[in-house]
C-alpha cells in the first residue's frame, strides 16, 4: 500500500541557511526602524516601485509577504473572519482579509519566528501599484485610514498586449509624481544616482533569480516550484539591495552543481509540470510531497516568474521601472499570457499545466476564460484545474485536488 511506503526524501538546498539570515535581517531591520523612527518605513505592494522607496532612504515592508506567511503558517483562517466582520468580503483577496484580520487581533506569526518582534513595523507611507489588482490598493487604503498614514500609488492599465511607449510614459509619469510626497515624508531629496544604483542592484537580483529559475530547464530539474516559493523571499523583500544579489550568487552555483552532477530535485523525475496561478500556501508541504511521490517535478510557474524584471535599466530608471512593472504576466492580455506560456513550454519542456483556480484571486486565476482549452488546442498541452485558494483553506478540497492531480499524472503516464 502506498501509505505504508516511506515517503521519498526532500533534498535540502544548503543555501537555505543564508536565505533565512537575509529574511531575518530584513524583519529585524524593519523592527528596529519602527522602534527608533529611523530610517523611515514604507509599505509597498509586492510589485510596486520598491526601488524608488529604497533610493529615498526608506526601509521597505511588503504586506503581501506577510500575507504569504499567514497562509503558510495556516493562521490565515483565524483572521479572515475578523476582516469579514468589518465589511471585507470572504470573496475578496484572502491575503488582504487575513492580514487585516491579524492586525485587528494584534497578532503576527512573525513573532513566533523572530524573537523580539511583536508587531508589524509601523509605516510612514503606504505605496501601491494596481498592476496586480484593485485589492492591493484597498488593502493599503485600509491601513492608511486606520493608521492615519499617507497612501499613494500608481494606477496601472490592465489586460494589455504589447507594452508600448505610451503606456510606459504614462506609468513613468505616475511614478515620478510620487517623488514630492516621498521627499516630504523622508525629509530628503531624490538622488538620481542613488536611484540608478538601486535599480542596477534590482536588475542584478532579477538576472540572478531568473537564472536560478531557469536551472529547472535541465532534465532532471535541480529545483522545483515549491523550492521557488521559498527561495524567492529575497527577490521579493530585498530586491534593490546587495544582500539579495549576494544571496542568489550563493544559491546559483549550488543548483548548477546539481545539474552537473545530475542531481534531481524529484528523484526519478518522470513528468514535468507548469503551475499557473497562486500557490496554496497552507498546503505547500503536502503538495510538494504528493508530486515527489508521483515522480513529477513542477518545474516552472507563473508565480515565481513574477519577480523577474528584465526591463529594469539603471540608465533609465523611471521608464524602465514603468516598463518592468507593466510587463508583468498578471497585467497582460490572455493573448500575451498564452505566448508567454508557450515560451515557457519551449524552455522548460513541461508535459502538462496545472491551473490553480484561486477562489479569492480572480486576477491570478487564468483558467476562467478558456485558456486551458486554447492552450490544449494550440500547443497540445493537457491541463488540470484545481480549485483552491492562496490563503483560505476553506475554499480548498484536499481530497478532490489530490485525486485530480494523481489522475492527471496517470494521464501523462499513459502518454509516455
Amino acid at each position, binding site marked *: *500500500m*502506498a*501509505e505504508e*511506503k516511506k515517503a521519498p526524501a526532500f533534498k535540502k538546498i544548503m543555501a537555505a541557511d543564508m536565505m533565512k539570515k537575509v529574511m531575518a535581517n530584513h524583519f529585524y531591520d524593519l523592527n528596529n526602524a519602527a522602534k527608533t523612527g529611523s530610517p523611515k518605513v514604507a509599505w509597498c505592494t509586492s510589485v510596486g516601485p520598491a526601488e524608488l522607496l529604497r533610493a529615498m532612504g526608506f526601509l521597505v515592508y511588503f504586506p503581501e509577504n506577510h500575507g504569504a506567511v499567514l497562509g503558510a503558517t495556516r493562521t490565515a483562517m483565524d483572521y479572515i473572519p475578523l476582516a469579514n466582520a468589518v465589511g471585507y468580503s470572504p470573496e475578496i483577496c484572502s491575503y488582504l482579509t487575513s492580514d487585516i484580520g491579524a492586525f485587528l487581533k494584534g497578532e503576527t506569526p512573525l513573532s513566533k519566528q523572530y524573537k523580539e518582534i511583536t508587531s508589524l513595523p509601523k509605516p510612514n507611507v503606504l505605496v501601491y501599484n494596481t498592476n496586480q489588482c484593485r485589492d492591493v490598493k484597498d488593502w493599503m487604503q485600509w491601513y492608511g485610514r486606520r493608521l492615519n498614514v499617507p497612501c499613494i500609488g500608481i494606477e496601472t492599465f490592465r489586460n494589455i498586449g504589447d507594452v508600448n511607449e505610451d503606456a510606459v510614459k504614462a506609468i513613468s509619469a505616475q511614478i515620478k509624481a510620487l517623488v514630492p510626497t516621498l521627499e516630504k515624508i523622508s525629509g530628503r531629496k531624490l538622488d538620481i544616482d542613488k536611484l540608478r544604483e538601486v535599480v542596477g542592484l534590482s536588475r542584478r537580483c532579477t538576472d540572478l533569480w531568473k537564472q536560478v529559475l531557469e536551472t529547472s530547464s535541465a532534465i532532471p530539474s535541480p529545483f522545483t516550484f515549491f523550492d521557488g516559493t521559498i527561495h524567492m523571499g529575497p527577490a521579493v523583500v530585498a530586491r534593490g539591495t546587495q544582500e539579495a544579489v549576494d544571496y542568489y550568487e550563493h544559491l546559483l552555483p549550488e543548483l548548477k552543481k546539481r545539474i552537473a552532477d545530475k542531481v534531481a530535485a524529484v528523484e526519478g523525475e518522470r513528468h514535468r509540470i507548469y503551475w499557473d496561478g497562486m500557490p496554496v500556501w497552507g498546503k505547500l508541504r503536502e503538495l510538494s510531497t504528493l508530486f515527489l511521490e508521483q515522480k513529477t517535478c513542477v518545474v516552472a510557474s507563473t508565480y515565481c516568474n513574477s519577480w523577474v524584471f528584465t526591463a529594469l535599466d539603471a540608465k533609465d530608471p523611471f521608464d524602465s521601472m514603468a516598463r518592468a512593472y507593466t510587463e508583468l504576466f498578471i497585467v497582460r492580455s490572455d493573448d500575451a499570457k498564452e505566448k508567454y506560456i508557450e515560451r515557457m513550454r519551449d524552455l522548460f519542456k513541461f508535459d502538462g499545466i496545472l491551473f490553480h*483556480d484561486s477562489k479569492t484571486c480572480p486576477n491570478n486565476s487564468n483558467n476562467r476564460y478558456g485558456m486551458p482549452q486554447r492552450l*490544449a488546442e494550440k500547443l497540445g498541452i*493537457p491541463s*488540470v*484545474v484545481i*480549485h483552491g485558494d492562496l490563503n483560505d483553506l476553506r*475554499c*480548498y*478540497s484536499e*481530497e*478532490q485536488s489530490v*485525486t*485530480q492531480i*494523481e*489522475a*492527471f499524472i*496517470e*494521464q501523462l503516464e*499513459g*502518454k509516455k
Partner: protein
Amino acid sequence: MASPLFAGIDVGAAATKVALVDASGALVGKAAIPSGMDFAEASETARALALEDAGASAGDLVRTVSTGYGRKNVAFADGTKTEIACHARGAHFYFPEAITIIDIGGQDNKIIKLDAAGNRLDFRMNRKCAAGTGAFLEEIARRIGVRIEEMEGLARLSTERVEIGSFCTVFSATEILALVRRGAKVPDIVKGAFRSVVKRVTEMDPFEGKVVATGGVVAYNSTVVELLSDAVGKPVRTPPAPQLSGAIGAALYARNEPASS
C-alpha cells in the same frame, strides 16, 4: 481453488462498491453498501458480501485494486488507482469506442473523455460544491420528507415542470420551500431536482460524441438518464451496473496489471 478472481473496490463518499471479475473480465460477484464512517470496515464487509454473491472465498482472489476517496484505507488492496482511471476503464469495457463518460457520484461528478482505444484524453471534476451530485439529491429528499429510493418513482408521476435554479444545495433547499408554499407537488419537485442535477452536469462540458453515464445516481434513477439524453441531444447510454463502474474498472486493473501503488 475455484477460478481465479480479481477484485475491485471503490470506496466512495457515499457507498463502498466491490466488483469481482474472472479471468475473462466477466462480473461474477458484487456488493454495494454505505461507506459510513469506517472505510476499512466497510471495505471488509463489502468484500465479504461480494465473495458470498460469487460463491467464492477470499482464497480465490488473486489481486485487489482499490479506488475512490477511501482507496488508501483498504488494507487488503495490492494497489490503488484513481477513480478517474477506474471509471474510464470500467465504462470502456462495456463501450469499447471513443466515449465521454459522465459519472454522477455521491460527492462529485466526473467528465472523462476517452479515445477509441480507451486512452484518456481529458477529464474534469466538479468544483468544491455538492450541487449536481448525489449529496444534493439526499438533501432535497430530506427536505421534502421522502426516502432517496422513492425519488425515481415519484419523478415518474410528475405532470408539471418545476425549475430549481440555484447553484447551491442549501439555497436550492430554500427554493424548494418556496415552491412548497406555492403549492408545487412533490413529484414535480423531485423531477425538478433531477433536472437541476442534469443542468449542473451538462454545464461541465459540451458533450461531443457518444456519451455514457455511470454512478449511483443514474443506477437508481433512470429519469436522470432520460433528462441527460434530452439535455445533450442524443441518447445517453449506461453500462449494465452503473454504480459499479469504478469498482469494475479497478477489478479489470487487478486482472491485467501487476500491483501498483
